[in-house]
């Protein structure tokens, strides 16, 4: 049973554009919603995370928007750069993580 659904599966964005990745979850007990970034051959690393008591969190070019009533959250990457090209995973958890299927982002120069 997939508890976190992520879309799109792949995304191609021009340099300077906005990348948007969406996730939806089912379990209302989840209280932590992180995004991880993974480069080829490496383990994922935390990029940004949000708790359900806020609707938005911004760190540099990365923003999480959170809609508790819709059980959805999204990652926005502003001014996307070629170095942002990676696979991005959303997750939802109480502890540990249930991950989305991942989005392969390619930023073209």
């Amino acid at each position, binding site marked *: 049973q997939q508890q976190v659904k*992520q879309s799109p599966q792949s995304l191609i964005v021009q340099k300077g554009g906005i990348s948007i990745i969406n996730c939806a979850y089912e379990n209302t007990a989840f*209280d*932590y919603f*992180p995004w*991880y970034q993974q480069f080829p*051959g*490496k*383990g*994922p*690393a*935390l990029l940004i*995370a949000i708790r359900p008591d806020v609707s938005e969190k911004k760190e540099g070019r990365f923003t999480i928007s959170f809609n508790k009533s819709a059980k959805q959250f999204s990652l926005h990457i502003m001014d996307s750069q070629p170095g942002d090209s990676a696979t991005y*995973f959303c*997750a939802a*958890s109480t*502890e*540990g*993580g*249930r*991950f*989305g*299927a*991942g989005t*392969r982002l390619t930023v073209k120069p």
Partner: protein
Amino acid sequence: SQTIHQWPATLVQPVGSPLSLECTVEGTSNPNLYWYRQAAGRGLQLLFYSVGIGQISSEVPQNLSASRPQDRQFILSSKKLLLSDSGFYLCAWSPEPGLNTGELFFGEGSRLTVL
């Protein structure tokens, strides 16, 4: 500071052979430990997690098993590998309950190819 080590980094094994992947965490005590598998181009599938020595929870029935013989050591094993066991195996840890911010810290991964 905390570090996590996984080995081997790369492994090529014949079908039917045994498997042992090791993971150790340094710089923390009583961590939660996790094994994930990532098939090519796919997401992260939680295989096992452990909240303490000898305490293993399995997420999916499979050809694999896990053990935690020491507080900061987590081992993934198989007696007989299948072709479908090929993938990228990731060990991760999170702080013990009560200190847990929710973040997972991943190792560098072990790439297993079963031929």
